[in-house]
Each structure stands twice: as structure tokens, then as C-alpha cells.
């Protein structure tokens, strides 16, 4: 296995513990605090669903970029990576509108423990989205020149993990009312 890919798997392994700790703690508290249902009803299911759609679609473009890179087509891989970056940007735009509305309505990170978990978990995930976008900008720039095409897969692996985390955040924060 190429060293770069092994490193990404190690990174993902460490991320499992980070997000697992946050989500596991949230789940335990959620089950022990039925009154949180009075708070969770204020999260926007449709905005969460829209962001799930965006991330799933960006995962598709990431895996298609990997496919293109495997065929040696760096230009197509780069285009698809930029599409993935665009997906990340769209996700952050939706998130910005969502948070702005919630903060304006008085639901902030210090309002109570539910909202503390909400902003911490989604915020940590958002930082990972930003990190993935930055990495893909470098990878896409090289890929367009036909360089370091193996990195397309590595960036994609990380992006799929970011998508995976959201797949679990979505029902925990938005659907479980």
C-alpha cells in the first residue's frame, strides 16, 4: 500500500475516536435528557437534508475524480475535485444561513447543553469540511498538470469520511426530535 494512503487511513482511524467521542457523549446525554426534545425541534430538518444531499453528491464527484485519476486523466480528475470543493462550499453556505438564523433566534452555544453539543459537533465537522476543501485545492492544481495523481484518491478517502460523519450527525441532530 502506498505510504500516503496508509497515512490517510491512520488519520481516519484517529478521527473515528474524535467524532465517536463527541457523538457517543451526545447520544448518552440525549437519552438521559428527554427535555432536549424541546430544543431539538428547533433544528431545521430540510436544511440538514439539503446538506446531506450536497455532501453525498460531493462524495460522488470525489470518487469519480478518483476513477479519472486511476485512468491517468488528470484534467478530468481536477475538474471533478473542483466540483467536490464546490459541494463543500455549498454545504458551508447552507450551514451559515442555518446558524445565522438560529443564533439570531437566541439559540447559541451557551444556551444549554443540547445547543452546546449541536454547535460543537457540527462546528468540528465544518472545520473538517474546510480542511478537506483546502487539501483538494492543492491536489486538484497538481492533478490538472498530470502530477501526483495518487493523491486524488487520498483526498477522496478523507472526504468520504467527512461525508460519513455527517451521515450520522444528520439523524442525531436533525431527525431525532
Amino acid at each position, binding site marked *: 500500500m502506498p505510504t500516503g494512503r496508509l497515512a490517510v487511513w491512520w488519520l481516519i482511524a484517529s478521527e473515528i475516536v474524535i467524532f465517536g467521542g463527541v457523538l457517543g457523549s451526545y447520544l448518552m446525554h440525549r437519552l438521559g435528557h428527554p427535555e432536549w426534545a424541546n430544543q431539538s425541534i428547533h433544528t431545521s430538518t430540510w436544511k440538514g437534508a439539503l446538506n446531506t444531499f450536497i455532501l*453525498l453528491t460531493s462524495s460522488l464527484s470525489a470518487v469519480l475524480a478518483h476513477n479519472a485519476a486511476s485512468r491517468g486523466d488528470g484534467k478530468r480528475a481536477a475538474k471533478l475535485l473542483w466540483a467536490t470543493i464546490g459541494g463543500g462550499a455549498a454545504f458551508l453556505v447552507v450551514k451559515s444561513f442555518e446558524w445565522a438564523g438560529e443564533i439570531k433566534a437566541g439559540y447559541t452555544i451557551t444556551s*444549554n447543553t443540547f445547543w452546546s453539543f449541536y454547535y460543537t459537533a457540527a462546528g468540528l465537522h465544518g472545520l473538517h469540511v474546510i480542511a478537506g476543501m483546502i487539501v483538494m485545492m492543492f491536489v486538484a492544481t497538481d492533478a490538472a498538470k498530470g502530477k501526483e495523481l495518487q493523491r486524488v484518491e487520498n483526498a477522496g478517502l478523507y472526504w468520504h469520511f467527512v461525508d460519513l460523519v455527517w451521515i450520522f450527525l444528520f439523524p442525531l441532530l436533525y431527525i431525532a426530535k
Partner: protein
Amino acid sequence: MSDNAHAPAAAGHAKHDAHPDSFYIKIWGVLLVLLVVSVIGPELGIRVVTLITAFGIAIVKAYLVVKNFMHIGVEKKYVGYLLVTMLALMVLMVGGVGPDVLRHDGTRWSNVAAKKVVEEGLKAGSGHGEHGGDPHAAPHADPHGEKPAEPAPAH
């Protein structure tokens, strides 16, 4: 570690290349259908249906992503073992801490603050927050001494 060092264009997996782009588009389509089901299912308001459609489908979606987009099936086995070990550690943490967090009463202890927060939160109902502090930090702390919740909007 560098078995693909001389194949820059195709570095990485070889086996998954058998899949055309249309295969991934189909998987994406299935993921979107599952997303719709996971949103509609809980609307029925039946607890079991909510659990299956929201959380059961999340697991299925995660499986599809890991298997088809991350190609875990063609990866070295130790990668799978590594990830499963991390998941096991997470389960161990939840299992170890869970009894103290989920329960507010034990044989020789009672989390008075947490019980009060739950009671007040339920009483306040929709539109009013609970108290801001962590009720688990000090079982006998006075919740009224903690920062009050932000005024919740009426909408």
C-alpha cells in the same frame, strides 16, 4: 509501502477500476433514495419506524459509502482491523461512561442537579431552555446558581 511507486497515473487501487462511472452514479442514486426515506419515515411519528428509518438507514448509507466509495473491500485487511479497533474503543468508552450518564440514580448516589434540570426542562416545554451548566459535573450543585438559559424565541 511503495508498491505503486512506478505507476503514477494509476497509483492506488487497481481492482476497483472495473467499475465504470455509471456504477458510482447508481450508488449515489440509492443513497439519495435512502436519504428521502430517512426524512419521511420519522414523519409518521412511530418510534420503531423512526429508529429504523433514521438510524438504521444511516448505518446502511455508511456501509454503501465505505464499501463502494472508499473501496474498503479491496484494501489491506489490517485497515479494516484498524477501523474496527477504533470503533470498539468508542463503544468501550460509551459502555463505560453510559451507566453514569444515562441514569440519574444509583445505589448510593443521586444526580440531583440532572434530575432537576430534566424536570424543569420538561415543565418549561417548547420555547424555553434548560439551565446552562453541566448537571453531571456536580451532583449536588444548585442549578439556580448556574447561568440561566438564553431567552428562547417564540416562533
